[in-house]
């Protein structure tokens, strides 16, 4: 075989040749270019498990949405970086993550995440972040503004007027009451929420979650174990306020 002149073959020709050889019952000698003992170490293709490591899967890095605090422009970012510049106004955006586990009075403006632990306490401070997990306390002069998800957990009962968020998640064991209309995109409940909810996206009540009040929106999902004691207006096709019932 070594003395034969090498010839270029395209992929289709290879496949066609193999198919013809199989049809004729003349398969190419297995392992022609490697010793027979090497072949025995590998399972034949038919015996390989479905999720064989030989089947390579490409994993796309997770993307996250960044919103510029200066101009409000939203763009997606894959990978990890500490800072980035807004593609529109060139404003520098911090993407760092912060964990607050004690008294905190320094302003934070980040496209990353801020976690306020149960021992953390916000004192006269404004927090602007992509995602915020609030388990600690905040005084009456503090505020939290989320461009993405705000998760309320622990035993904290913040004043809803101090919170601005796009999506809201109530953690398990937490009970939250909004006296005014709560307008969010997505709402996910593992705990209890009492509010007049208007959601543009999905209202999802997970097992253990409970929603009381009113819910208006396009999409509702109640998993078994979730509770719903509310007036419900769910119309996926249009605005529930303009529909005819």
């Amino acid at each position: 075989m070594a003395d034969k002149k090498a010839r270029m073959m395209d992929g289709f020709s290879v496949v066609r040749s193999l198919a013809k050889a199989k049809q004729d019952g003349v398969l190419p000698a297995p392992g022609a270019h490697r010793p027979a003992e090497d072949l025995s170490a590998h399972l034949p293709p038919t015996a390989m498990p479905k999720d064989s490591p030989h089947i390579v899967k490409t994993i796309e890095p997770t993307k996250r949405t960044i919103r510029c605090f200066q101009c409000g422009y939203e763009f997606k970012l894959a990978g990890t970086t500490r800072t980035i510049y807004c593609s529109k106004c060139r404003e520098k955006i911090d993407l760092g993550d912060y964990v607050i586990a004690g008294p905190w009075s320094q302003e934070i403006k980040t496209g990353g995440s801020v976690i306020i632990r149960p021992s953390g306490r916000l004192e006269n401070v404004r927090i602007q972040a992509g995602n915020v997990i609030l388990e600690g306390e905040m005084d009456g002069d503090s505020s939290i503004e989320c461009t993405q998800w705000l998760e309320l957990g622990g035993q904290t009962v913040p004043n809803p007027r101090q919170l601005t968020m796009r999506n809201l998640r109530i953690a398990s064991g937490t009970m939250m009451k909004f006296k005014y209309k709560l307008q969010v995109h997505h709402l996910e409940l593992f705990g209890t929420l009492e509010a007049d909810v208007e959601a543009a996206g999905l209202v999802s009540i997970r097992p253990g979650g409970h929603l009381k009040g009113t819910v208006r929106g396009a999409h509702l999902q109640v998993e078994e174990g979730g509770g719903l004691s509310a007036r419900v207006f769910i119309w996926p096709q249009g605005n529930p306020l303009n529909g005819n019932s």
Partner: protein
Amino acid sequence: MSNENHESVIGADVEIVGTVKSNGSIRLDGKLEGELQCGGNAVLGKNAQVKGNVTATSVSIEGKINGNILAKDKIEMKASATVNGDIKARRLSVEDGVTFVGRSEVNPNSQPAPAPQAGPAVR
């Protein structure tokens, strides 16, 4: 097909005006103008259209219903379901995509729903 489960089937080409009562489970694919009282499970298929109240142990909805639903145990709304009316049950499962306008009273920790009361459909 339903003998083993003792399920009564009302086909897609059947239209009933009046009250339907069943001690066992029932599957409705046709149209019903009136009440459905079922001692077992009630399944409203994709083509089902009900104008009236439904009372059953558990109710699974894929079609359209204009009326109140009272389930002793569970109400299950599939993605294609359209419900205009109030619901009351111990357990609720709602898939994304349903159309639902009404009051909901579901609390998994509460006692089973009281015995069904005969009454007119609200819508």
